[in-house]
């Protein structure tokens, strides 16, 4: 069976950048699977998830392959692309207040892509909108309301309902809770997880919140400076990080199950897009970096004894115990 999403060696160049913003991303989301993509601000999480819908910044050029349900997104024609966006993959955005046109009714927002692609009569689209609103816990009357009349949490529910309108195989959620308050965040994440189960979609969940990633996802990709630093099943990856960057991220994240200890911010800044990179992109900030790290780009290697795990670090095997220890005890 084909994966719902398959990204192979995706490279993305932006005008004015000295190196590719995405430098060879490999990522898969299986059918009905939840996959988290984590990393610091600027690491390229949004660009990766937007590439899946070919929502690229002006002037961007791409190499590699992005396939949704086996269809290559980067090379399809405009009609296929509309079909993909309407029926196969849908994105949930960070700030629902900015993401929904304030001048049009919610009903219009929900049904517009189905109606305007001339494949669904208006009445049928309306009926589906009512069902999807019900699925996210909102009543029919919301259809006639304007975004300004709803709270942020309600609007994000509307956004989720709209993503489900075309019965997609894949949902991309780009930090869907960052703009919401804490209680609403939990509700929205819970809802998203339920609906993924109920409607049988795959979910790519972009976040910089490792706790959230661990709670919601089956597998996690850790991204740094346009590359995947490490990937694996959520539990294994957070218990036994194999990349110094993952360990550092964990140490900088508050954890409910380990309330003691101080949070350690990662020293230094991610490399700017203006500089070219040789070697490991994390080398400049890595406490374990050696000469080899600065000179040679570490390839993705399997972790001995752990299937489904890949890590891009020269010293990952030697550091295994040290990294696992530091992540657990701080």
């Amino acid at each position: 069976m084909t994966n719902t999403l398959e990204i192979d060696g995706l490279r993305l160049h932006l005008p004015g950048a000295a190196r590719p913003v995405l430098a060879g991303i490999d990522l898969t989301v299986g059918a009905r699977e939840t996959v988290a993509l984590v990393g610091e601000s600027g690491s390229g999480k949004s660009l990766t998830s937007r590439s899946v819908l070919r929502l690229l910044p002006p002037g961007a050029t791409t190499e590699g392959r992005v396939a949704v349900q086996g269809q290559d997104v980067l090379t399809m024609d405009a009609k296929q692309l509309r079909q993909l966006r309407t029926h196969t993959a849908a994105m949930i955005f960070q700030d629902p207040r900015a993401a929904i046109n304030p001048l049009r009714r919610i009903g219009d927002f929900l049904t517009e892509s189905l109606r305007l692609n001339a494949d669904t009569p208006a009445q049928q689209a309306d009926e589906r909108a009512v069902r999807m609103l019900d699925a996210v816990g909102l009543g029919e009357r919301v259809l006639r309301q304007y975004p300004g009349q709803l709270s942020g949490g309600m609007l994000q529910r509307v956004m989720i309902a709209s993503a489900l309108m075309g019965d997609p195989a894949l949902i991309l959620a780009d930090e869907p809770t960052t703009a919401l308050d804490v209680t609403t965040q939990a509700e929205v994440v819970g809802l998203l997880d339920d609906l993924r189960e109920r409607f049988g979609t795959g979910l790519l969940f972009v976040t910089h919140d490792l706790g959230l990633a661990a709670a919601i996802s089956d597998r996690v990709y850790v991204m740094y400076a346009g590359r995947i630093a490490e990937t694996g099943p959520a539990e294994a990856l957070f218990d036994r990080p194999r990349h110094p960057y993952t360990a550092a991220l964990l140490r900088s994240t508050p954890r409910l199950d380990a309330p003691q200890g101080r949070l350690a911010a990662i020293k230094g800044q991610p490399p700017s897009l203006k500089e070219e990179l040789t070697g490991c992109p994390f080398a400049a900030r890595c406490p374990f970096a050696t000469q080899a790290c600065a000179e040679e780009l570490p390839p993705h290697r399997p972790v001995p004894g752990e299937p489904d795990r890949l890590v891009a670090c020269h010293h990952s095997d030697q550091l295994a115990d040290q990294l696992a220890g530091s992540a657990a005890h701080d």
Partner: protein
Amino acid sequence: MTFLRFTLRRLAEMAATLLAASFLIFGAMYLAPGNPASFLLSGRSASPEALKAINDQYHLNDPFWEQYLRWLGQVLHGDFGRSIEYRTPVNTLLAARLPSTLLLVAMALVLVVVLGLALGWIGAVRGGATDSTILVGTTFAVGTPSFVAAVLLQGLFSVKLGWFPSSGSGAGLGSMLWHLTLPALALALYLIGMLARVTRSAMLEVMGHEHVTVTRSRGVPERAVIRRHVFRNTLGTVLTMGGLIVSTLLICTVLVETAFSVNGIGQLLDLSTTTKDFPVVQAISLIIVGIFMLVNFVVDLLLPLVDPRVSLGTRGASA
């Protein structure tokens, strides 16, 4: 605020403004140098008796307040008095000249709305060389005063090419349309450039909004994205320009009608000002002020329909 309360409040405001405007206009005419009687009799040997007769007939020697209140009483009864120059009721004079002006302003308004919006839209959506060309064109249009535009259009299309008449307003609708094409263009040119620029920059601004990207991400066809989200969201901005557009048309029509010898109300205002024909000047000025306020009132009524975040009586920014 309810519709009724809003309407009543605005009507009261408009009445008060008109009253103040009428007083100012009347006062300005009263203080301005020159006497209508002397214009009327210029060229003729005016006997003191004739002069006195005119002054008496038009009460020109009465104290200011008496003159003003008498005039105001008439106006409230719908009578703007008699023209000193033409010796006919101002109402008759206006009625005869109204069709040319109405048609001229309407033609110009259609040109402004259609061409202004279309050029702004095309510039914003196409970008590149098309956009640059439109920008240069609108810069030229905005920098050309309407009387200069009138002279240029006359020179090119009437004198040189002979496609359109250079003056007059014709009789019968067809002939009027033909006669008024060049004046309408001259009148509209500045506002076309202005509206195109406003539309273009408003559309570019909206295009940068996240909700436009979101709509694209849902597979909505690009034309629908532009029409239903980008252009739709600029309507508030365009509508708030309505008052400015109409008042500019009304003011510039004076210059354009004079330049093209269109016998409309604008030309009449120009003539009456030079001959100190008080009643006519006052009537036309008041009508212009009234129309301006009416347009703004209609704009305020329409804004909430275009932007649900604006409630009656509170103009807000639109996105």
